[in-house]
């Protein structure tokens, strides 16, 4: 009996259950809006007629700070945007600056980076699955997911000392050599993760109530998805077979086999299936990568002070939420002239109104969960 009377469900205008519409206010403090997101819903009875997302409660002006920090100093800020997938943020930023410099991380660094990013993808999807199931009412999966996620965070902690905002990578390669036992930890995690994920599947996939609550909810067609610029699992669940790791391979993805899960209808159930399949693929990549981590240097010769030649670059990676892009303009000094982050959660959240229209109030909670947003990245 969770007693959540602190919810800020403030102003509810117009009459109770009157014939005309009610404005229902969800958030910004609300148990299931995954952070400080406020959604104003216009309801006709139970149906959502119109919705408006009000964001900006967590805006810290990251892009402004970037203009007053050197390239290396800005790297830790990048982890704080999508704090659930800090490692992939770091990878995106470091690779963008390396492209700006025209440098290239050594092969060993690229492989270790791939392994850590894929582990981070599994951790991010696990956190999504746990909270999404909790919103829809399944109390048990959240604890299984956090148990697995704990294993991954332990590996991160052993490698770079931090669990959440890891700042694991440096521009030009890696700061730390992999600790001995790194390969065996990752191998052990991947091995027992296979039957763990089957455990979740048995709990949810054929569960009639789960299917009832997710099938046909928050449908997004492929055309709408592309028009709205939606990327990542949400786009793949709408039937578009596109993944940056295959389309424009970066780090060491080119030399591993993995396939891209897609689903036809693009409803909440399909996004669930796509993300579960993605976790399996990530685990497969990790196993392949662990087989042969090339020896050699872990840091390219980029020197202490980075002064990239003037110009601009756009580089993006496949973050767990979607395409995370960095558009960096350099004016030749040690500080970036402009860093623009393409936040997948921010753009995917824009599709919320298209999905929520016509659905029931209870589905709004499921739809917010299925887009998988992190407010740190939405507000930057």
């Amino acid at each position, binding site marked *: 009996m969770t007693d959540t009377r602190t919810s800020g469900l403030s102003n509810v205008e117009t*009459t*109770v*259950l*009157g014939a005309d519409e009610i404005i229902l206010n969800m958030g910004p403090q609300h148990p299931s809006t995954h952070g400080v997101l406020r959604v104003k819903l216009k309801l006709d009875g139970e149906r959502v007629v119109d919705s408006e997302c009000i964001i900006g409660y967590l805006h810290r002006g990251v892009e402004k700070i970037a203009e007053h920090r050197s390239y290396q100093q800005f790297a830790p800020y990048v982890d704080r945007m999508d704090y659930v997938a800090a490692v992939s943020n770091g990878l995106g930023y470091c690779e963008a600056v390396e492209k700006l410099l025209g440098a290239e991380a050594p092969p060993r660094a690229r492989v270790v980076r791939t392994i850590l990013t894929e582990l981070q993808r599994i951790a991010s999807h696990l956190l999504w699955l746990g909270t999404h199931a909790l919103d829809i009412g399944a109390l048990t999966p959240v604890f299984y997911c956090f148990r697995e996620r704990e294993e991954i965070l332990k590996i991160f902690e052993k490698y770079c000392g931090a669990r959440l905002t890891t700042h694991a990578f440096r521009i030009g390669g890696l700061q730390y050599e992999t600790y001995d036992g790194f390969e065996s930890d990752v191998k052990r995690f991947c091995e027992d993760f296979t039957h763990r994920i089957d455990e979740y599947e048995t709990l949810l996939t054929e569960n009639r109530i789960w299917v009832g609550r997710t099938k046909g909810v928050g449908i997004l067609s492929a055309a709408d998805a592309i028009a709205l610029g939606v990327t990542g699992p949400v786009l793949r669940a709408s039937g578009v077979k596109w993944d940056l790791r295959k389309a424009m391979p970066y780090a060491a993805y080119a030399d591993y086999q993995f396939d891209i899960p897609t689903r036809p209808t693009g409803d909440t159930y399909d996004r669930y299936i796509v993300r579960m399949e993605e976790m399996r693929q990530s685990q497969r990549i990790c196993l392949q990568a662990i087989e042969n981590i090339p020896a050699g240097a872990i840091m390219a010769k980029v020197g202490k002070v980075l002064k990239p030649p003037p110009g601009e670059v756009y580089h993006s990676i496949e973050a767990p939420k979607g395409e995370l892009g960095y558009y960096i303009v350099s004016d030749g000094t040690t500080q970036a002239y402009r860093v623009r982050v393409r936040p997948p959660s921010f753009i995917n959240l824009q599709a919320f109104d298209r999905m929520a229209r016509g659905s029931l109030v209870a589905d709004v909670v499921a739809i917010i969960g299925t887009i998988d947003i992190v407010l740190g990245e939405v507000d930057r």
Partner: protein
Amino acid sequence: MAMNYILFAFFSVMAIGCSILMVTRRNIVHSAVFLIGALLATAGIFLQLQAEFLFVVQIILYVGGIMVLFVFVIMLVNLDVSMRLVQFNRQKWAAGVLALVLGAQVLFALWIGRGELRLPAPAVDVSPKNTEAIGQALFQHYMLPFEIASVLLLVAMIGAVVMAKRRV
């Protein structure tokens, strides 16, 4: 025997008191609650008359079913409007006179029958217990009226659904 009288007095006072309170309340939900009190009191009196099946059905049907719908409707309709209505309208006097006449009639009937006003003795274990007796009566002796009543109810229900359907 004394216990019977005490209980009977309690139930009747409760019934009368609740109905008066029900009529005079300004807040509509309070009057609904007092109506429930009155119905429960009558159920108590049924029990006193050894008609336990009626006692239970009265509670399930009236209080558990119909009154729930009453309270439902009260809560769905906007209450502020009814609060502001003036409590007693102009026909106050006509209603008073009518009540007096009816009261006199009832008292007169009581006065005539005052000799036999006793509570029924607790029925010694009569063979078909109350529930079976009602069951047999309903489904054997009064089969036809029972069917007609059920069809009538069905028609009423369908009518209500059809009317509500169009509005929704």
